[in-house]
């Protein structure tokens, strides 16, 4: 039993590929096939949650699986940052699984077996990423994530979808190569690198110029998935994918893998001191600030709801990047907590977008006038999400922004505070009108109550409720707040 428990990180990672195999094997029996998805997601979430107390108590789970190359083993380690990401992804996978079934069946989509199997493999890669203990392990799972997401992006098989898939691959594979180069290079500098709070690279290992190049390469690697401008172009295009994919992968798993990578690189490869020394933090913060503002502006002009949400995602992700680049305690805490907060809020919005599309075939913002009368529950959830993203208390967006603001002040970056204010304003402008028009707009079309089926309506309501809880009491439940505090303490407290 003890050994079984000690291998928990491995079980967590392995639940999903096993599920994928079972899904493929149950190709002809849809109900059985979907039960595997649900079962795997619940088991995985429970397993992850079961590790939370130990992680909060400061216990270290480390598991060396097999050697990959000299100096690099495939090692899984559970630390507070990885735990945050794993918790978010696994909890939301449960909800998304239910939603997926509702969505795919409502639309009578084809190729569902491949869809569920790829989805499971994506979660596998996400969990692997969350628990990766060294750069090569990270790279392996990062590439698996790329490949598993590709069929989901191209799922519709239309020429447009196939093109989106190509674009996605072009961006992410190039990013993977940048990362491969960086990791290979690091391997020639130090024998057995592994992620360490406070970083393992410093100027005693390589000259600053080399470190800057390495930093840029790694940032190119993770920045593509994190949607940092100008590497973001794949993200809006990939919105062609079925909505549950956009919801979980393009708001939670894939893009969060990117920002998670940013946090790993800044906090666990370089560390605050080295970043200051080689002077890369301000450029990174500037790019993030630029992304925040510009993508918000672009979001304003999008009529397609999913595209608008995509640009909103691009903008919100850069909050996390900004928080990491500020190198201040409050900023980093805000970053980590925003991984969770944004995930819950944005998945709500995507769930609603999908429900509206699957149920009433509405995908444009301009067609949503009065839709709240037909679908009050889902649009109610949307409103919660919109308010939350805009950062209005008591929703969690406020918590992240507040601390991010304090972080900007701690780092003496008044400019960044200004960026946050402007962006909050823009968020209000691009999300509020949708909610407002949904309930108060005049419409001939939506006159009577016509809510989506339960599998589509319940998940957004649930995640909206969860968002409210996260906003009011960030310290309960999955305790993201405590996890974030621990990450900050370990990274900025001079290492543990």
């Amino acid at each position, binding site marked *: 039993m003890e050994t079984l428990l000690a291998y928990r990180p491995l079980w967590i990672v392995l639940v999903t590929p096993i599920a994928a195999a079972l899904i493929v094997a149950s190709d002809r029996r849809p109900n059985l096939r979907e039960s595997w998805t649900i079962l795997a997601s619940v088991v995985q979430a429970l397993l992850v949650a079961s590790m939370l107390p130990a992680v909060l108590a400061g216990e270290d789970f480390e598991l060396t699986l097999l050697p*990959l190359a000299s100096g690099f083993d495939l090692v899984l380690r559970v630390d507070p940052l990885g735990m945050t990401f794993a918790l978010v992804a696994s909890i939301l996978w449960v909800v998304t699984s239910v939603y997926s079934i509702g969505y795919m069946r409502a639309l009578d989509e084809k190729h569902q077996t491949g869809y569920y199997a790829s989805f499971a493999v994506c979660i596998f890669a996400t969990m692997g990423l969350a628990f990766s203990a060294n750069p090569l392990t990270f790279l392996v799972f990062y590439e698996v994530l790329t490949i598993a997401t590709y069929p989901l992006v*191209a799922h519709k098989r239309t020429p447009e979808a*196939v093109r989106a898939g190509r674009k996605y691959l072009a961006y992410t*594979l190039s990013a993977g190569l940048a990362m*491969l*180069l960086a990791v290979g290079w690091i391997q020639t500098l130090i024998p057995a690198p592994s992620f360490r709070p406070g970083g393992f690279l410093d100027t005693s290992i390589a000259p600053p110029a080399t470190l800057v190049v390495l930093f840029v390469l790694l940032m190119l690697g993770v920045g593509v998935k994190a949607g940092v401008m100008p590497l973001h172009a794949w993200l809006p295009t990939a919105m062609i994918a079925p909505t549950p994919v956009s919801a979980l992968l393009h708001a939670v798993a894939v893009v969060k893998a990117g920002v998670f990578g940013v946090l790993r690189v800044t906090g666990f490869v370089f560390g605050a001191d080295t970043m200051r020394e080689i002077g890369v933090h301000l450029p990174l913060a500037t790019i993030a600030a630029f992304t925040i503002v510009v993508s918000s502006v672009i979001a304003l002009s999008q009529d397609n709801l999913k595209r608008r949400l995509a640009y909103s995602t691009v903008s919100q992700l850069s909050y996390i990047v900004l928080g990491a680049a500020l190198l201040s305690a409050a900023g980093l805490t805000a970053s980590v907590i925003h991984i969770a907060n944004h995930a819950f809020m944005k998945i709500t919005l995507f769930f609603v977008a999908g429900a509206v599309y699957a149920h009433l075939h509405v995908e444009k913002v301009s067609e949503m006038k009065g839709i709240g009368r037909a679908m009050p529950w889902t649009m109610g959830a949307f409103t919660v999400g919109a308010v939350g993203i805009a950062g209005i208390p008591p929703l969690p967006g406020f918590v992240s922004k507040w601390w991010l603001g304090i972080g900007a002040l701690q780092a003496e970056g008044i400019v960044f505070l200004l960026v946050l204010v402007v962006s909050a304003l823009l968020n209000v402008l691009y999300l509020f009108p949708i909610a407002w028009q949904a309930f108060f707009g005049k419409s001939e079309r939506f006159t009577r109550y016509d809510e989506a089926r339960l599998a589509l309506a319940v998940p957004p309501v649930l995640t909206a409720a969860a968002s409210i809880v996260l906003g009011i009491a960030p310290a309960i439940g999955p305790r993201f707040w405590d996890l974030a505090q621990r990450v900050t303490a370990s990274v900025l407290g001079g290492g543990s």
Partner: protein
Amino acid sequence: MQTSAPVVVVAILFFAALLLPVVRRFSAAAVYPIALAAGAAAAAVSLWQASLVIRTGGPLVSWLGGWEPPWGIEFRVDHLGAIMSPLVTVVSLIVLVFARRNLGERLERRSHFFYSLYLLFTMGLVGFVQTGDLFNLYVFLEVIALTGYALVAAGEPRAPFAAFRYMILGTLAASFYLLGLAYLYGLTGSLNFVDVAARLAEHQDTRTAFVALAFLLVGFGIKAALFPLHAWLPDTYSYSPSVTVAFMAAVGTKIGAYGIFRVLYTVYEIGTHRQHLPVTEVMGILAAVAIVVGSILAIAQTDLNRMLAYSSVSQIGYVLLGFSLVNSAGITGGVLHVLNHAFMKSSLFMVTGAIVSRLGHGDLRRFGELGRQMPVAMATFTVAALSMVGLPPTAGFFSKWYLVVGAIQAGKWPYVVVILASSLLNAVYFFRVLESAYFTRRLDPTSAYEHVAAIRPLPLSVTAPLGVTAIAILLLGLGSWPLVEHVVRFIVPAGL
């Protein structure tokens, strides 16, 4: 350690090859089982001797006729032989299983000749990688060449012409080799690898030694299809029977690479006893050009067979680039890639053979819905393709990893760029096939549906070898470190 195992492997194949035409006179049904048994026995013995090399840590030698080297001919299986010999026999066996139902009607009638040649070809290859004698190497080179021409010419109507071209260039290659060998013999008076290496020390940096080296390398360069000596390859691969090409593409060009390794590192001891010679620089540049040009030409093809043929031109570049780096990581990458690419390419060509046998064409633009019609074949193709692109956790990733690290260590940044860029080019042409097979419908709606329905499922004798290669590709990836630690490490000359 003295053992007769290396001779036994060669003898099994040789006598079985002689036996087949005789057996045919009595029982046509017995031909294939005997060929298969011989292939299996050879594979078993060579695997056993490989394990012996790993266990004892030293080379296995057998002195033919009991004559001690340097007077007699010596079979010498060191760590490189311990990789190459099982590689040849195992791939030969896999393709032999595949051959059962893929010879085609015309060849089936004279299958005893085909299998006889096939076993002789295998024998030549095994002898080539096991012999410790330079002239004996030439003998096996000719055995490989002569049987190879016949195996190629057995293909479709244009095959004899391709075989003729292959023969002209092959003869040229052998002549170059023989010339180089004559110089070496004149210089040292010996033919045994180890002995020649020891005697060369006196003649270090003489012009004769250098000229001999150049001749030897050009000879093997043609055999390896190193750009610009690759002209024989595309036609040969396109028009040969699918069985021939599945085996030849796996190991045919590799013997050239093997020869180059032997000349550079066993005989001339470059990097350890001799300074870097300009030949490695030239070879590196040619290899880099081969990688890029091969990939670009592959992108230009619409026929799957030809695409894979050009891809081979590119891939041999990886191997030779690794050898040209003259450092540990580079050689490791090169040797691993010999192994990995053999499995990938035989896998890919077997899939192609299966596709052509079912669709009647290999036009990769017209593979619509193939993913569903031939699930096992396309799944195998996918695994092999991901490996060709170099994505973890497949084998291709790890050879790429060592090559990148080796190039960084050697400070050869242009090569780093070439290796990474080539990954993307590989992605372009392999994902194009995957896209066609999984995401497009049939182009021709009139003939389509009956034809699609008429695709017969592949027999087990085809799906089993495909499955084996796919699994091998994954295992070679995840198990690459044990392989490096126990075998490849000893192939790298001590001191590098």
